[in-house]
């Protein structure tokens, strides 16, 4: 029985691991921290897995646990120097994939998002993952109205960064 549970969990996580990697990309700045956070999220998902009833999709359930771990439970390691060197991680913007302005804009936006606070990052992440405001507000525990207002404020922040 237990073996079966382990197998089911690891298989599900393996095929949905992109969600966790994306959270790690937003919340950490180097490869070691990325792996560290990935591991902590995996542990938290596994600990909570017996309570997963399957009335929602596994991926939906993952968003909450992954973000909770990143925002609340994860302790950033103090040993490492925090850098903002976004290019060195993932999401390298490839040259000639976009024209210059578009490429520049994307780069600027990714950089700006990395500098948001933990809560705003979660908001943007769920938005980029195409979640609606109901799901965003339920995941974070804020009202839908507040989620919209916060999102607008983040958009304004990004706008100022793009058009100084």
């Amino acid at each position, binding site marked *: 029985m237990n073996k079966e549970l382990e197998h089911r*969990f690891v298989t599900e996580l*393996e095929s949905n691991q992109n969600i966790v990697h994306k959270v790690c990309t937003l919340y950490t700045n180097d490869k070691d921290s990325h792996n560290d956070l990935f591991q902590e999220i*995996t542990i938290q998902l596994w600990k909570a897995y017996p*309570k997963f009833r399957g009335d929602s999709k596994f991926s939906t359930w993952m968003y909450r646990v992954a973000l909770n771990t990143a925002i*609340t439970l994860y302790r950033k390691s103090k040993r490492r120097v925090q850098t903002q060197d976004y290019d060195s991680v993932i999401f390298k913007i490839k040259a000639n994939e976009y024209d210059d302005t578009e490429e520049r804009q*994307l780069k600027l936006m990714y950089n700006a998002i990395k500098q948001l606070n933990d809560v705003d990052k979660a908001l943007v992440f769920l938005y*980029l993952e195409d979640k609606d405001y109901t799901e965003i507000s339920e995941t974070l525990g804020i009202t839908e109205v507040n989620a919209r207002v916060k999102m607008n404020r983040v958009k304004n922040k990004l706008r100022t960064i793009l058009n100084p």
Partner: protein
Amino acid sequence: MLDELELLKKDWQKRDAELPKLSYDEIYKMIWKKSSSIVKWIFYISIIEFILPHLLYLVPSMRNNLDLYSDLGLSNVILVVSIVQYLVIFYFIYQFYKRYREISVLDNARQLTSNILRTRKTVKHYVIFSLSMVLLTFVLLIVGIYFTDNVLEALGLTGKMASLPANEAKMIIMASFAIFGVLFTVALGGIYFLLYGLLTRKLRKNYRELQKLEV
């Protein structure tokens, strides 16, 4: 702006191919690793904080204090204070355990943060209580000294302050106890609140952010 964010969304969703890929075995190994979450830290540090004040009684000089209490005629008072103290401590431990059990990663972010902070706050109240008890002990000692005639004898200081008039020696001893008591409490409190602040800084910051209403 909306266009730019839509552009970002499209770009974001196209980038899956660049993400790292972990194998089944790599993930399987991870589920047996120990969590190093903030909740774990808070749990262990809190346990230490519950135990630490009681370890002091194992130090021989602290046990000698018990003799001192009887010499100063404080035995009964100390007994009553100890009983009350232990009742309160058990209440705190019960509260701590109950709140700790309520922490669930399946709650929404605001609820989760709030539950962790509440758990930690129980320990904070316990520490404030312990510090008050330390201070109270010093106050009792000072009162005891005040009502004792042969203070120097009771403290084992016979002959050491013989040059001073008895009353003056008593005042000096009382003042020293008062100063030491306050410094001791402040030092303990300082260390604790520094630790408390460091452990919960991130939580408090995010909690404020989640509670803040944007208008």
